[in-house]
């Protein structure tokens, strides 16, 4: 087989852009947690690829043999992308997923426990689940298996495989870890006793700038994430890129406006939630839909992200300061569900409902998502339970002092 040079450049550059998103998620988390957990958050960003990539390169050919042939990822007749370039591109998505899960359950899981989860994720969970959809696995053929036509679960760049996955897994972990001291007290209507006050006051976004930097690097990398998921450089590339530019931006503008309306302030955390939420929702759709659809998605994602975050804040037992469940979970699920609705023939292999497509696809898509995500939830639940049992939940004392000191021996003045 011959090397398809332009596709290889496309995926190599794409993988590099996605790569920077991995530690950027650590930056984002660092800006939204207590000051005493900043180094812990950034370290998780580094370890996400340090653990995932070596594991992934060793195992992905086993899981992804369905789409590899002869050392190449076949992109056409007689030409292809060398296997390890393709593996690098896909692997970067996996490490992003891992980093996102980490950000969804910050401040209370000890580092050793997190690394054990990371190993399970890297060797088994993600390779398996992602291969079901992207590696030629059974969910990509679900329609045929069920006798519902050629339809399979379609996920352009990871609405389900990355974002809904991470949002739900992070949610399960954060739930099993139990809320932080602050949340517990709010839950039990306890007052501002010294210790809880300490937690409370240290959430004042003392280093919000890192969250902004993380958001910048994430948006930048997302053009590789979505933009280069077309694999080949084609007319489709203009949609994967243009839609990404529009949906994230518009959603950020929407949440900015909503924060102004409801909070009388242009809340930067809301702006970031919107930008990222818009990017998440367009992810599964980016190369499959027309430009106008990204405006619809942008507005929807703005609403989902803003009200989703406000909604979650009420439930004190869910301690998700980064907004992982609303931003990644909700938007990822809704975006994935919209694929069989908005997909444009010519861009996607099948037509969406609004283009007169078959409702069977929607059924296949939703069923497939449910299967994949249930598996993620169930296995994450079991592993986390074991970790909590094994003592990797930080004690109240450790939580208070902060993981920077407890896990990393770093005490910044």
């Amino acid at each position, binding site marked *: 087989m011959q090397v398809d040079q332009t596709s290889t450049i496309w995926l190599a550059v794409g993988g590099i852009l996605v790569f920077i998103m991995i530690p950027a998620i650590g930056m984002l988390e660092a800006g939204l947690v207590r000051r005493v957990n900043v180094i812990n958050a950034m370290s998780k960003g580094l370890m996400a690829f340090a653990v995932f990539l070596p594991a992934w390169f060793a195992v992905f050919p086993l899981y992804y043999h369905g789409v590899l042939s002869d050392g190449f990822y076949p992109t056409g007749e007689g030409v292809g992308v060398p296997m390890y370039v393709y593996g690098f591109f896909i692997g970067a998505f996996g490490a992003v997923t891992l980093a996102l899960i980490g950000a969804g359950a910050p401040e209370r899981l000890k580092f050793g426990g997190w690394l054990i989860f990371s190993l399970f994720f890297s060797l088994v969970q993600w390779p398996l689940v992602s291969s079901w959809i992207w590696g030629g696995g059974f969910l990509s053929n679900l329609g045929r298996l069920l006798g519902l036509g050629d339809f399979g679960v379609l996920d352009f760049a990871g609405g389900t495989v990355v974002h809904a996955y991470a949002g739900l897994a992070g949610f399960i972990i954060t739930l099993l870890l139990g809320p932080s001291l602050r949340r517990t007290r709010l839950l039990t209507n306890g007052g501002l006793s010294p*210790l809880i006050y300490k937690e409370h006051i240290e959430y004042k976004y003392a280093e919000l700038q890192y969250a902004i930097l993380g958001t910048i690097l994430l948006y930048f990398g997302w053009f590789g994430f979505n933009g280069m998921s077309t694999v080949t450089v084609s007319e489709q590339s203009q949609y994967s890129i243009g839609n990404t530019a529009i949906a994230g931006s518009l959603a950020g503008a929407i949440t900015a406006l909503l924060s102004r309306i409801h909070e009388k302030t242009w809340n930067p955390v809301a702006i970031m939630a919107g930008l990222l939420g818009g990017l998440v929702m367009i992810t599964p759709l980016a190369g499959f839909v027309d430009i106008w659809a990204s405006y619809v998605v942008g507005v929807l994602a703005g609403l989902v992200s803003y009200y989703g975050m406000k909604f979650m804040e009420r439930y004190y037992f869910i301690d998700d300061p980064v907004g992982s469940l609303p931003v990644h979970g909700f938007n990822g699920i809704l975006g994935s569900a919209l694929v069989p609705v908005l997909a444009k023939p010519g861009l996607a292999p099948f037509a969406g409902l609004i283009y007169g497509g078959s409702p069977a696809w929607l059924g296949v898509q939703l069923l497939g998502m449910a299967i994949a995500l249930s598996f993620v939830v169930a296995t994450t639940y079991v592993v986390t339970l074991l970790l909590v049992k094994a003592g990797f939940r930080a004690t109240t004392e450790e939580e208070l002092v902060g993981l920077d000191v407890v896990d990393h021996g770093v005490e910044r003045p």
Partner: protein
Amino acid sequence: MTLVMVRAVIREDKLMDVLTALVSHGFTGATVYRAQGMGGEGGVVSIRGSARPVLIPRTVVEVVTDEKRAEEVTKIIMSAAKTGEVGDGRIFVIPMSAAIRIRTGEFLSE
């Protein structure tokens, strides 16, 4: 007239309330410090068996005033800084022997 320094250790987020209350009662001068406090029960946790004090973010407001108005200042601060929860802080009153305005060199008596 003798001067005293009223030094209040308060919650960080009560600072603006306290200062505003002071100003509205005519006390327009104060010096403010960031500090950390240990106090009451709950301030010590044990990490791997050894006790480790937990320091809580605090703000210190220092108002110099004459002895007679010290009580007023104390009351203003107390009502503005109080939440009723453990950890509201303390007010310390320290006698002074002199206060001088650098700009003019004048000795202040209030």
